[in-house]
């Protein structure tokens, strides 16, 4: 399984990345290197291994429904590329209804 140039452009679009023609070829190579690695993993004998992570559980551990607030809010906001008062500011969005 290898990705072609078209698929690289499609994935770039999904990831909202602007990829130039010059960048497409190296990206395609990188992605195919990764996929090749997974192809190698496919060669492992996993016949008796459950494909579903932790399905051996008798029951999934879960949380009580109790709300508590986090103290790090200021820190999170101040780490934002652009903070705008109580908000995170992001670039204008080019999709949706009003475009």
């Amino acid at each position, binding site marked *: 399984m290898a990705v072609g140039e078209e698929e690289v452009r499609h994935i770039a679009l999904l990831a909202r990345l602007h990829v130039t023609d010059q960048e497409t070829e190296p990206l395609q190579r990188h992605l195919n290197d990764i996929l090749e690695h997974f192809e190698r993993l496919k060669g492992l004998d996993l016949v008796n291994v459950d494909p579903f992570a932790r399905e051996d559980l008798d029951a999934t551990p879960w949380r009580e429904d109790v*709300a508590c607030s986090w103290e790090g809010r200021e820190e999170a906001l101040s780490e934002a590329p652009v903070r705008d008062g109580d908000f995170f500011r992001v670039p204008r969005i080019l999709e949706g209804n009003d475009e």
Partner: protein
Amino acid sequence: MRQPGSPVIGLEIHVQVATESKLFCACSTDYIGAVPNTHVCPVCLGQPGSLPVINGRVVEYAVRTALALGARVGKSTRFHRKNYFYPDLPKAYQISQYDRPLAEGGALPIGEGENRKEIPITRLHLEEDAGKLVHSAADGRLGHSEYSLVDYNRGGVPLMEIVSEPEISTPAEAREYVATLRQLVRYLGVSDGDMEKGSLRVDANVSLTGADGKLGTKVEIKNMNSLRALERALDYEIARQADLIRKGESVRQETRHWDDGNGLTCGTRGKEEAHDYRYFPEPDLPALVLPDGFVEKQRDIMPEMPWILKERFVTDWGLSLQDAAVLTELPGLSRYVEDCVREGADPQRAANWIRTEVLRVLNEKRIGIEDFGVPAENLSPLLVKIDRGELSTTLAKTVFDRMVAEGLTALEALEKIGAPSGRLTGERLRNVIERVLEKESSAVEEIKSGKDPKGKKRGFLCGQIMREARGQADPEEVAKTLSRFLGC
């Protein structure tokens, strides 16, 4: 086979689950009116290294909803990542369910009598809500804004997505389906079901059957914030598609937004290519395995389904369907009626009184039955007095208003109004009894000759006397005085 041109509607409904904390972290779900980005933490902000842990109550509530719909609950299900890049999702994926949803199958019954229909359910799954974008342009329009502001308070709030099969045939049916589902989640106590607040969001898939009887191209409609908007949007969309087909044009597969102000749906120019979510299993969460006995335990604590309750009100109490529908619309109201009847009120009397008087007060005060100042155990004695003829309806209304205004019991209100002072006793009561006995002489004869072993006639006479006395006599005194008159 469907008739060519007939509408085919399927609904996807997102229901916000009424929990204190979010689906995968302990942040509060109380986002309405909150200062932006105050209910956030590393998990719902998608910080590297943070790990989600599922909220047990969400699982309980979702299982209860699934059981109410008669769906099959999976013993072991799992979560997937739905990948898309948009600023309302800080992780760039939404944790949702894909190939193994929490529940599959089941149906929701809608309509009455001949129009009764079961709308089959495809699936019910859990997922997290996204954050909210606030647009900065002065006119509030996205297209004109320089940038957007993000508030993640809503991000990670638990949602149940309930998907119906495309077996809804008319906008009216769609409306009824949503109304019934809303009523259900309210009865189960799993959501407030408020469409305007966004706790219940409806997306509709609509297509028209082709000339060959096959399904046409479907269009998804979003942004309908009320039952009325849903019905209007579907009416509009069906007409729009029919028009396209009549003109020989084709319907484009797309997502359209309902514009309530202008009464039309408009297309988005987003590329359909973008609907490629690259789902894969969420590696940060183990499989969702329900403990042994969990589903059974949820089944045991299920309340009576509203549609069954409605039927019971009709068959057991002889209420009209319309009365039963109004009284079972909200769980609090149906409990109130049941409490009144348990306290001795006649069901029809209780139904009439609640529909007219109680609902009038609730509407005037803009409150729910939960905040109503007259508990069922206070209203019931008043209704009993009307039925016994001890109070005229007019006087009862005055008493009731007093009870509402001052939080009194029926007896306290009666005393305050001064009704007891006008009570018929002694000579005046004897006069009334004489008048009634003269008029009902045949009943008197029957009683005297022992033809009234069960006391029915005697009861009838007491009732007539109370009526004549306009409810202003003491029933015990009436009974005693009557016995003296009859000599037995």
